[in-house]
């Protein structure tokens, strides 16, 4: 169905195939990952807050090639029909059209709708919504470049939590999230897009390190329980690392505000 509210191009277009000879043969080797990481290392992550000045809070996260931006608006008044004594958390996840291998349409597809739901499920337990009656907090995540869909979701959750903190929304803890890919018996942290094509399953964990509590777990694939437990432990460690970067970023923002203003 053509999107009549946008400039439309031809009805159908495809991503071209690569020439057989020029394919840089990629075989997945857990010992030697393409970017030189060990299987239990996450990509070095860069975070920044206050990137969207119009928003109440915002954050930008970069992990390798992955780039995610998030803006938080709120608390703002809820529409009359939905007033409740607890605040409402609205999450919106969107891939930019140029963010992946295939151009994405502007209309949300099922993956984006699912990720929006996961975002809300992962963040809502941490946000003190009971302190925001009759209010709505809107979280908008825009993925600029994606490198691994599970890693992208994890990055979005982390970025959103950072933006919520930047907006001054009271939370129990800043949620950090990380992703893991299962490759038969090997578990690899933070798989990239290329690595993802070889995985047999994935797991995304959203975790509150200070409270040692999990807000959300989503796993796909047929995995044994011991492997899952190992993966969860790996993720917990990684999330702690991620949260320390979040805290450093927030501290730096506050220092800037105190010194600069």
């Amino acid at each position, binding site marked *: 169905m053509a999107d009549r509210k946008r400039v439309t191009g031809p009805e159908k277009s495809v991503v071209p195939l690569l020439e057989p000879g020029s394919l840089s043969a990629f075989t997945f080797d857990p010992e030697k990952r393409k970017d030189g990481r060990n299987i239990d290392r996450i990509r070095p992550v860069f975070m920044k807050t206050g990137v*969207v000045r119009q928003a109440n809070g915002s954050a930008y996260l970069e992990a390798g090639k992955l780039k995610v931006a998030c803006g938080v608006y709120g608390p703002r008044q809820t529409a009359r029909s939905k007033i409740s004594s607890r605040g409402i958390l609205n999450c919106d996840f969107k891939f930019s059209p140029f963010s992946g291998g295939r151009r994405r349409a502007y209309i949300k597809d099922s993956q984006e709708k699912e990720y929006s739901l996961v975002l809300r499920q992962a963040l809502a337990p941490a946000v003190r919504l009971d302190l925001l009656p009759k209010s709505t907090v809107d979280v908008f995540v825009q993925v600029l470049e994606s490198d691994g869909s599970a890693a992208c979701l994890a990055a979005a959750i982390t970025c959103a939590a950072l933006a919520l903190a930047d907006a001054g929304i009271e939370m129990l803890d800043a949620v950090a999230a990380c992703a893991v890919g299962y490759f038969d018996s090997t578990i690899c942290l933070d798989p990239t897009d290329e690595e993802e094509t070889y995985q047999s399953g994935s797991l995304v964990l959203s975790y509150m390190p200070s409270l040692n509590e999990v807000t959300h777990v989503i796993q796909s694939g047929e995995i044994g329980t011991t492997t899952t437990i190992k993966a969860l432990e790996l993720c917990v460690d990684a999330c702690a690392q991620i949260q320390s970067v979040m805290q450093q970023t927030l501290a730096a923002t506050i220092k800037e505000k105190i010194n600069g203003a």
Partner: protein
Amino acid sequence: MDDSTPASVQNGMDVDTPPSVTSTPAVFSLDSETFKKIHPTEYHRRFLSQGVRPDGRTLSRFRKAKITVGAITTAHGSAMARLGETTVVCGIKAEITEPKTGAPRDGFIVPNFDLPPLCSPQFKPGPPSELSQSISEYINRVLESSKLLNLSDLCIEEGRAVWVLYADIVCLNYEGNAMDAAMLALVAALKHVRLPTATFYEADNAVRVKEQRTIPLKLSRTPISVTFGVFDGQFILADPDIEEEPHLSSQLTVIIEQNGGLCGMLKPGGSALGQETLTSCLEAARTRATHILGILEGALAER
């Protein structure tokens, strides 16, 4: 940015009283933040009558422009443009499609400008606003009618396969004057595009490409967009920002290229603008375009 302009407001909002004269009896006086909230048009008027704008700029001063190319590696070409705080990212993705039967050698370029709810509290999730749709459409018109790209350059196999370039421009922070930022990001991204060599294989009716992206696009010109706002039908403000935009009586966008030729003029209604004003705007646009072109060259050289 010091806005400690005293604002004594008399009953009835006497517009003619110059701000420096305190008329008696002053019934009550307001601090500038409150005044800005309750009577924003008058707030701007007070500044403009002194030849300055609330953010400290003079009327003819544009905001600082910054361009970076190549941030998005999944795209065939990308650029981020900042105009003051207004930030937009343009990513161009090239895919393969069949050409139209009437133009078997012509490829396609599909520009779209999006103002997601992320960039400003005035945009809600859902279908695109009138502003983003009209900017998308005008950019599309300008690209087409100025023949920026020779569409037959995008031909892979006549009648069978051509490139389609999806140029998606996403605004990350909207602080006024989206049109200029969008055009700038688009042109920078187009100049940054590198397409891989593509061959059409009759045997399996498919196109295969080499891995390296080496072929640049040939742009016939470099159009730069320069927008002015008109306040009260008399003050011409260069590069209106988000505070000024809702109170403008009119806007004027000039799309000018490096030789001084024009690729577009858009004045979407509002208060009237005379010929002398149009001429002076065109002059100012020319100067600004030269400046922007310099910044663009610099950014592309850094890639």
